[in-house]
């Protein structure tokens, strides 16, 4: 096992997001786990700490804001990146106050999210 591999959890209820994102990130050497319901993602978060969490904001059940709040409470060092189709300044600002690393509006480019993840990874390594 490579211990220095950066681990990423992706949560988005639109399956296409993880379907596209996962192989693209795996190709870059990340260890990726993807979920489409916040319930499953929460269960996984309970047992494992991820370096980076990528989550949608607007979902059924526990919404992304609650999810990322819980993640940050449990693991303050985990970097959270928010992706959402309901991009408004208000939600973006709110997520920043929760300690979110960065914010991406859907649709976004694979290259854009890869760049944000690389920055989050660099920040974690510095700390």
């Amino acid at each position: 096992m490579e211990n220095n591999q950066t681990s990423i959890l992706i949560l988005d209820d639109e399956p296409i997001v993880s379907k596209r994102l996962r192989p693209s990130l795996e190709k870059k050497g990340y260890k990726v786990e993807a979920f489409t319901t916040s319930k499953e993602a929460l269960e996984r978060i309970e047992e494992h700490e991820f370096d980076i969490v990528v989550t949608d904001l607007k979902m059924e059940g526990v919404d992304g804001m609650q999810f990322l709040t819980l993640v940050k409470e449990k693991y303050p060092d985990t970097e959270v990146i928010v992706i959402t189709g309901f991009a408004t300044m208000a939600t973006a600002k709110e997520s920043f106050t929760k300690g979110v690393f960065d914010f991406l509006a859907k649709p976004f480019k694979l290259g854009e999210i890869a760049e944000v993840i690389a920055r989050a990874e660099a920040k974690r390594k510095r700390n």
Partner: protein
Amino acid sequence: MVPINFNSEKKMRLRSKLKRMFFGVKKETIPFRIIFAEFKKSLELNNQILDLIADANDKLSGDYIFDEQYIQKTCHRLTELVQQLIVTINHLTDQKYTDLYTNFHRIESEIDSLLSGRTLNQVKDFVLPYSSVSRDLTDSVGGKNAHIAEIGALLDLKIPSGFAITTSAYLYFLDDNNLRNRIFGIREKWRHKEIAVDEASQKISRLILDAEIPDVLKNEILSEAERVSKEYEDVTPCFAVRSSALGEDEISSFAGQYLSCLNIPLNEIPQAYKEVIASLFSPEAMEYRLQMDFRPHEIMMAVACQMMIPAKASGVLYTYNPVRPKEETMIINSAWGLGEPIVSGEVPTDHFVLERRPPHQARELNIVRKDQSMILKGCGGIAIDGVQEEQRMEPSLKKDQLQELARIGIRLEQYFKRPQDIEFAVDSQNKVTVLQSRQLRLQDERAPRACDLTGLGGKYPILFRGKGIAAMEGIGIGPAWILSEEHDLNEFPMGGILVARHATPQLARVIHRAAGFITDIGSTTGHLATVAREFRVPALFNTGNGTELIEHGQEITLDTECLTIYEGVVQELQYYSIQEDPLEEMYEYRLLRRMLKKIEPLNLTDPTAENFTPAGCRTYHDLTRFIHEKAVETIIDLNFYHAHHRDTQAGQLLWDYPLDLILIDVGGGIEGKHEKGIRPEQISSIPMQAILDGMSYPGMWDMSPAGVDFSGFMSSLTRTSPIRSTSPEDVGRNLSVISAEYTNINFRLGYHFTVIDAFVSDNILDNHIYFRFSGGVTETTRRTRRTRLLAKILSHYDFLCEVHGDIVVARLKRTDRDGMLNRLFLLGLLVGFTRQLDVKMVSEDTIITFFNEIKNIMEKKNGK
């Protein structure tokens, strides 16, 4: 009946016409500023629509992650904008174009039903002969039919005679028997784990097999089968009835899950049809579709009916060894008789391994003892029969047949841009027929990205690199074929790389044969670029002098992602070239592609063509294009040809440069009288003066001589013939509405459109400049150098810049009079200058060069 608006609109039109006839009331009662406001609104809508289409098209490039919500939102917004645009043109023209609503509503409802997941892009026909099947019809005939028909029609390979029974027939059959909801109900039970997949499968199959085929459908199938079998008078017509389900051919591991019925006599086709349809719900297929995220409306079966070929030998060809693709070999398995037991692995087969590289030398020839074969039984059915003793140890394929198959394999692979899994039959005259061809999924790890393959340059000689723009990314390998007077396009060889001076639309004619395109001149927004993307043919345009650096007949490898051309065949890249993310596996991708078919294609390219009418509009883009043309035409007609308005005067600009520009003055923009035209010194509109100063700056207008493309391009912007000799219906006029402080310019440059809207006064708060440059044809997937150069210059001079695909929009406000005029001078420079950029921007370095050139001019002008 409810009175319809349309009628009242018609009446209004008639009434105003009568009024004009009898009382001489003219349109001039409407002040020009109101008409002009409508005109500007139409331009604004036009721009918004094109921006949205360009953005949506960009999403298909594979670079983006987008969801269904995005597609919904984009389509709804487009519908809204196009509707507003139709309202606006009708205001502007006194309800002259109300018939635009007919096609608009048709497209709107097609889009809605695609979005709601009720339908796909289907034709209404129940059966289609192979001669009228193409890949555009995949949603109607399924992948297998579409592929085989395309192979026969375009690649000139022998295929079985036959026809497709469409997905519309499938739905008709279900609905006539009231089965759709019942099947859906059973499927839902299974999806919610209430029943097992086997039980669900059996229940659905029973429903289908017990149903009756409606007479209309049955008769259409039988009469088409009769028509096909008439081509073969001497044999008893028997058919293979095969599945051609949606999504079936996109991945070969899905093959074999559906039924094929062989040697079916004509009158038994309907029964076989039902059996094939029932196999759509085999347990394996149901599980597979769940994994592929198929929506209920995508679960449909078209059927292929093909004349049986009494095969002497049959087999399967893989264009790569799927387990060890790096060995660069192809594999053929074959045996005597029909192919079914070979495909299903029931009989021992001869095994041949050939090199992929011509002359396809054999690496392995493994001949087995073949005791049995499957043959056709006289009329109907098949049988297993003993092979004659002397044939049992003989190879089932001869050496020249192996060679022919290898060539066919490579050709199909080049055409479909994927490794292929091909079934074939050899008839008694030793002729090879392709029965089907589908993508072969390789098991190996994905190859590294082409750019990561470091050190290739050391291993293979590079002809040139870093030149040109990729119109379609990818790898193309083949002999270079240079288009010239000695080489006629009709002689372009299969698998060649076409090297030409200009990326003209005519080259698209050989798209089916081309492994790549390289041109000296051309832009990523042209027709050829669009076609190259549709067919995934790598294309590198604007190399400057590629035709001089490449030799005719030379074997080359084109890597458009790294803008590199190698001499010879670069094996590492060849392997990479056929590995790609299977975007088709995403529902959202399929949906967006279907939507864009209704929105984006531009059929109305020529305003003088017969189809340039409301009835000719087949997409939102067509509607938008038509309305834009008519809006400009209306303004010019009203003010120039008829001079209806007392409050305006109009005339053509008389200039040293051949710019065909009509000026409409709405107040204080022109001084003195004009008879034959307006001289530049008569223009008192300050923004217009500044723009013309920029355009006429020495060197901006006539730089170096350009190629043929360029002169054609010039003539659409500028016309040397006097304007009076062209009719009002003529095309490509440039229009400017001016006043003392205001200018609105609409330039058309072939496909390109430039808009400048500026107000300059001593009040800083009122001042604004809006500049828009667009490629017009929006199929671009990436920003061109020209776009980036414009954005760089404009941002440097304080404009707020936005780039959508090939469109640049720049805005400037709150700047004083002199600052505004300085920027308008800059825009004038750019308008003169950008006309040449398509031709000149051959490398990345040119961005800096041109940027500095413009900066120097500006500094010189401002005395720095």
